[in-house]
């Protein structure tokens, strides 16, 4: 669902137009939509956002993210110009971290009597297990994250410091916040989607998301119009081979039919010209 707010009839039009970095009040807009299928995975998608730009891709410090204390206070030069804010080094440094996607999406089910029921969204399990447990680590030596990050500054565009990404769950806070980890895995193409939340299947035979009307509540923080970008929310089921991807099917059908066709042709040729052994031995 495109909620960017380009046209004036879009509910987020005002949020997009009036956006400034220094508003303290979050701009909230609401989009109504109807869901027909029982879906499970919730993505946010961005378009024309060059996460694969070289300057962007290298602007990170994996050592810092791995909890290296020296890198925490003295990040790599690659992070320029997001390396230091004044004299204090930024944690996490770099352009990738600085531009962390910070819209908040909340999904409501509008039932028959128009009352909104919030759909429970799971925010863990969206990042690679190895990333969360090995590659990303909070600075060691201090169980209190606030103290661990005390000598560092928050990234310029962030509203909250890194140790307040998810205050409710210490396992999902700081560098090991999964939203953060997902964002840090830079996308391959300028149009991409990233896993946002998982809507877990309820027990029994009831569908995960029942048919009906839904409402998406968006806290609009992330500006994309300046570079002509688009934002989307995508709900998708995942099969054993990943998300829905028409390409593979088409490719297999095409290659398969080519092979079949060739097989038939070769079979015909084989039958027709099978006498090659006799014709081949013409003595000269």
């Amino acid at each position, binding site marked *: 669902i495109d909620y960017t707010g380009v046209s004036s009839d879009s509910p987020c039009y005002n949020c997009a137009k009036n956006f400034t970095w220094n508003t303290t009040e979050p701009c909230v807009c609401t989009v109504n939509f109807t869901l027909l299928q029982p879906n499970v995975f919730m993505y946010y998608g961005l378009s024309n956002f060059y996460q694969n730009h070289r300057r962007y891709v290298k602007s990170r410090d994996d050592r810092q993210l791995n909890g290296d204390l020296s890198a925490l206070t003295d990040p790599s030069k690659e992070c320029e110009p997001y390396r230091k804010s004044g004299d204090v080094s930024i944690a996490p440094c770099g352009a990738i971290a600085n531009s962390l996607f910070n819209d908040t999406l909340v999904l409501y089910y509008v039932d028959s009597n128009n009352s909104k029921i919030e759909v429970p969204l799971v925010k863990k399990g969206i990042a690679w297990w190895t990333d969360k447990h090995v*590659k990303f680590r909070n600075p060691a030596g201090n169980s209190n994250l606030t103290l661990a990050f005390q000598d560092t500054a928050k990234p310029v565009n962030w509203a909250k410091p890194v140790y307040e990404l998810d205050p409710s769950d210490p396992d999902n806070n700081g560098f090991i916040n999964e939203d953060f980890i997902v964002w840090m895995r830079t*996308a391959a193409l300028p149009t991409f989607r990233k896993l946002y939340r998982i809507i877990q299947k309820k027990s029994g035979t009831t569908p995960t998301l029942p048919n009906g009307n839904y409402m998406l509540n968006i806290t609009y923080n992330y500006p994309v119009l300046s570079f002509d970008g688009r934002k989307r929310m995508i709900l*998708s089921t995942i099969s054993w*081979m990943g998300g829905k991807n028409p390409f593979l099917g088409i490719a297999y059908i095409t290659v398969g039919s080519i*092979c079949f066709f060739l097989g038939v042709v070769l079979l015909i040729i084989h039958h027709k010209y099978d006498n090659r052994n006799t*014709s*081949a031995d*013409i003595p000269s």
Partner: protein
Amino acid sequence: RPCPADEVFIPPKFCDNRIVSSKYTVWNFLPKNLFEQFRRIANFYFLIIFLVQVIVDTPTSPVTSGLPLFFVITVTAIKQGYEDWLRHKADNEVNKYRVTVLEDGRRIQKESEKIKVGDVLEVEEDETFPCDLILLQSSRDDGTCFVTTASLDGESNHKTHYTVPDTERDVESLNATIECEQPQPDLYKFVGRMHIYKNNEEPSLRSLGPENLLLKGATLKNTQSICGVAVYTGMETKMALNYQGKSQKRSVVEKSINAFLLVYLCILVSKALVCTTLKYVWQSKPGQDEPWYNEKTLKEKETNLYLNMFTDFLSFMVLFNFIIPVSMYVTVEMQKFLGSFFISWDKDFFDSEIEEGALVNTSDLNEELGQVEYVFTDKTGTLTQNNMEFIECCIDGHQYKYRDASSEVDGFCVTDGPVNTVQQKAGREREELFLRALCLCHTVQVKEGFIASSPDEIALVQGAMRYGFTFLGLESKTMKILNRTNDVEMYELLHVLNFDPVRRRMSVIVRSISGETLLFCKGADSSIFPRVKQEEVETIRMHVERNATDGYRTLCVAYKHLTAEEYDQVDSGLREARLALQDREEKLMAVYNQVETGMNLIGATAVEDRLQEEAAETMEALQGAGIKVWVLTGDKMETAKSTCYACRLFKRNTELLELTVRTLESPGKRREDRLHDLLLEYHKKTVQDAPPAKTRVASQDYGFIVDGATLSMVLNSSSENNLHDYKDLFLQICQNCTSVLCCRMAPLQKAQIVKMVKNSKGSPITLSIGDGANDVSMILEAHVGIGIKGKEGRQAVRNSDYAIPKLKHLKKLLLGHGHLYYVRIAHLVQYFFYKNLCFILPQFLYQFFCGCSQQPLYDAAYLTMYNICFTSMPILAYSLFEQHISLEMLLENATLYRQIGKNAMLRWGPFLYWTLLGVFHGLVFFFGVWFLFSNPALQDNGQAFGNWSYGTIVFTILVFTVTLKLALDTRHWTWINHFVIWGSLAFYVFFSFFWGGVIWPFLRQQRLYFVFANMLSSVSAWLVIIVLILLSLLPEILYVVLRKPRGPYARQKLVQSSAGGIQSPRSSARPLLMRTFSDESNTVS
């Protein structure tokens, strides 16, 4: 005690006797070797790329191109360093050798490198001479010594050298100066003179010739010790001077590689330009250059726009530089080096007689063996065995043949020999004179049999022995002969007028006991006949020509009585000429010519030279392979012609075009005009009438015969205006003949011919094969020089690129090994360009999707390892072991050789095919994965893949496709191929796990951490990898499969369309082709 008399001669600076064949010292090895290596254009290119990476902020770290470059440079440096170390060792051995120097009457041990010009040295038996010496004193009574020059020119016979007259007695008190010419490399030429000062006497003059000069490198034999004075030392010795002459030969394949490199360089530059332009176009759109999420650093903002553009351009160059394969040169060199072992290991080349196999002197030309269009072969020793046997002789027109059983030949009664047949034969006196002439006129030495530099002479002396005259030997200028009545006849040897190929004759002047002075001369008929009394010629000429047509080598023998006055005149003339410092050769020649006139012809000899085994089969195979065979020989036309017939170079239906002195002699016309007419006539016959002749079934074969004299007329008639046409006409005629015979050639003319063909239109690849010193010039001149390990010494072998024991091995060398080597290296080169093109193309395409920001698609480790580890070994194994058609098949069907002629596999057509294939694969890889990534959520837990996963998937497909493509091309599987192909795929998987499985502390970014493992956990990735590999290999599989059923059909049509115009050798090849192709496809499908 010799010392240069200062008032006569102030010695200039002579170099010391140190031999330096090594290139480097410990100190200058690194800089000099690096300099040498970076002179290669490819190495220099990579150095530049490396420097750019170090200086400019580029997408890939300097390690990615620095590591391969370092690897290549190190390997080469180690190889060269090792070779140089060996040279150092050899040098040291020579330079530190202890020699005995006589100084002030005492013997002093010195190191060889300290010898100075003018030192008197003493050399013992079996020692080698440390420098070039003038022989002063010998322990032998007769003032001679024997040396063998086996290490110089390979001739193992003992050569006699003489002391300078009047010096041998009192070296201790000798006071003399020596004047000699500047050092020159000719081993057999030396002129100088010695002034001997005796107390208060007029200095006496002695001439010095090559017979006084002992060469460095030669070994003293049969002589206890000698004393000699050093004249040339160190790098001025003839051996050292001879060492340098060899030039580097380059193969056509290398030229093709360079051309392809240029194309890829252009592609590279244009890619970089396109990307740079696009980048700035893209950036010009608002919000793209610097969106809020991706701001530039302060430094980037401040730098100048144009400077930025330039660095961007360089960055793109660096990003795409892998398109030029860094490791190709190493692989090609390894392939050549290792491949050349197959020739020297080939058991078929092993000859039990000399107990040696083939020898490879250079490995650079392996593939050239598959490209030969012209073979220039020597006759004697190459086509023939150079194993002489005395067959018959003729004395005064009467024929004598040595046979066990008598038979009737040519109207004359032939019996066991002249002994019993006085009747109907020449007078006994003449007979004996003839046999004495054979016994005296030679340079044979007696030592456990006869030893001579020319096998003809041995044959003649042995022939004379059979008729009862035995040569006993030469003792202090006296030749002893055991005659029929077992008496020893003594002759004093006065002068030897040496044989040389220009005069084509030799003479001796002897004095018998009775005081008669006689001159005996033997030589080629053409050089003898004009010098004898004409009335005797005709009877002998008939025999000579008949013998020549039978393929025998003929020599004529003549003699002359010299009166005392005549002899004195000759003697003084010869002495004078030998003393001359300048133009000694010419002066001697003049005296020789003057003496050898008005002789009496006694008779002629015929010596048989057998054909080499399988000479005819080999020649036929070569002709079947479309190779034109030219015979270049110094022999007479008739002899050579019969050899050609025997070798089936000329067949019965071959029309012979002769352009010789004889055909030029026509009454009333100048020879030049006649030449002109003949050339035009032949040209019309062969060139202008040829096109229609080709389409007919039985096209006329032409054989062309030319002799040396006419050839020089064609080549050198510079005064005339239309001379250039002559050369062209001549060349065109020759190129349209199936075989060409050039007889009566001087060594230099042989080289001239080779050069002429080499530089003709289309620059065909030429091959020269020969065994003697007279073939060296043409061996060096041709693209590929082959030496036969024959009897005429090792000089040809030393100067050749390849040496084989027998002529018959040439067939396998060219049709078997040469063909395979060419196919291998051609495939290697094309494959290298292909695999790097489809490696880099996705990276190029990726630029369109990342804002042309030089973001590399693959991780740095993959970029670096791709060419070194993942894909280099299979192609190396392929290029060593591939036999697309089995060796036996290649040898049986010479016509297969034609298919790869003219560099067929490295022309622009195949190159385009490979390039398009590379582009196709690159497009499939990139866009296949691109479509897949339209939804990057590819894992079953809904997690998404990032840009490194993208690159890894593309790279995995790439490695597998490229390796499997090679597997599809491989027709000849050995266990090494299996090991290497599946091994490198396994290595790739293993490496990827390993590389992604650890957090590497030395890396700034853990880009690939568990990317590969996660990729494998995604079913979609698996599916896409499989389908894309299949898709990209589909055309290849199709191509291989379709060759089978379509083959006969297409070929049948071809046969019908050309309406029986196919010649028999071609049609015999067709079924074979089909068989091989069907075999191939069976293995694949």
